[in-house]
């Protein structure tokens, strides 16, 4: 699909999607060109901004009262805070957990609200794009690798040869370990993107069935309702999985294989 087609489609009307994948198409609303770099404001960008605004409002309005006995909104904020704090504390622990807390918290809430806001009809799920998830995954991957090299210097290479393994296994094991290490960002990115895309596509397909079956349309409609509930679960779970894997990678970087 070329960008010319996309613009002509959006000219015909943004709501007129047909294929189940059309809901993922990027629409440039404000063309911005930063010295040859395309920084256009798109539907994806809008949802990212909304996600940031929602998280920020939740954090500020929720803690506005700073009450000793939390209200509803404050409970949500504290729940999120303590969830991430506990996750980092359990997996990484110690001073490092405190240092990475803002990053993991921002990552988790950004993905969580990106996923959840995308479930609102007519909105857009920016996490359903591989480029978004791979960017996040690469930030985590590169960051964690640099962290490991800073902490362990050349000893970082022993990460690819677990302790206690006989030397003659090394030629076999080291490539496997390296491949599995490099596969990390890919699996991280694909897991999130594929989950989001698959769920939304299925919802769209069954939405089409509702009209195609006229009277019996209530059957796929009931399925959509059930699936929507599942998608909410998936949205939360995938954000959680992304965050928890990030914690695990941070831990690996700090402790390598030992401990």
């Amino acid at each position, binding site marked *: 699909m070329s960008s010319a087609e996309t613009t002509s489609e959006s000219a015909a009307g943004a709501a007129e999607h047909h294929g189940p994948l059309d809901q993922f198409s990027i629409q440039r609303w404000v063309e911005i060109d*930063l010295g040859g770099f395309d920084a256009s404001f798109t539907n994806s960008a809008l949802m990212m901004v909304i996600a940031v605004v929602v998280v920020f409002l939740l*954090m500020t309005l929720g803690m506005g009262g700073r009450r000793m006995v939390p209200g509803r909104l404050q409970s949500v904020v504290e729940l999120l805070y303590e969830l991430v704090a506990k996750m980092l504390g359990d997996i990484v622990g110690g001073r490092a957990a405190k240092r990475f807390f803002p990053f993991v918290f*921002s990552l988790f809430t950004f993905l969580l609200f990106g996923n959840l806001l995308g479930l609102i009809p007519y909105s857009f799920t920016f996490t359903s794009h591989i480029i978004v998830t791979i960017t996040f995954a690469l930030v985590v991957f590169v960051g964690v690798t640099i962290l490991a090299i800073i902490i362990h210097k050349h000893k970082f290479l022993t990460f690819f040869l677990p302790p206690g393994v006989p030397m003659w296994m090394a030629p076999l094991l080291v490539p496997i370990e390296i491949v599995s290490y490099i596969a990390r960002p890919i699996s991280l990115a694909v897991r999130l993107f594929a989950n989001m895309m698959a769920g939304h596509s299925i919802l769209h397909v069954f939405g089409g069935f509702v009209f195609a079956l006229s009277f019996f349309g209530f059957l796929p409609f009931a399925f959509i309702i059930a699936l929507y509930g599942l998608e909410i679960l998936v949205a939360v779970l995938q954000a959680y999985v992304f965050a928890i894997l990030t914690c695990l990678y941070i831990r690996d970087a700090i402790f390598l294989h030992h401990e």
Partner: protein
Amino acid sequence: MPQLVIPDYAPQIFWLVVTFVILLALMWSFALPRVGRVLEQRQKHIDDDLSEAEKFKQGAEEAIKAYEASLAEARAKAHQLLAETQAKLDQQAAEQRARLDAELAEKQASAESRIREARQQALSSVREVAAEVARAATDRLIGVEPSQDAANAAVDGKG
């Protein structure tokens, strides 16, 4: 597949970086420390309350101990008072009884002496009458009136 449209990558990466960095900065500098402070404060508050409750509990325990001690003391005092009163009453009763006994004994003695006196008197008058009768009888029988002393001696059985 819209996910594979390469020209769309640049704006997505750009806005992703911009929005996420803003979010990270906001959370790092402002939102998270505030939540942390509130949670810390609450933890401190709870700990303070707990220690205060512990203090209160200790105070209550001490008060109970003091109360029990004073209760025991009062009970002992009451016992002592009771015993003292009992002793006093016993003593008083004994005294009273002794007095009464003495009084009765005195009365008895005086009554006895009175009886003895009366008897003595009665006896002596019987002697006198006997002597008189003896004198009169003797006078009538033999015409000799014995002396008073002889009559008395005869009555008494001497001579």
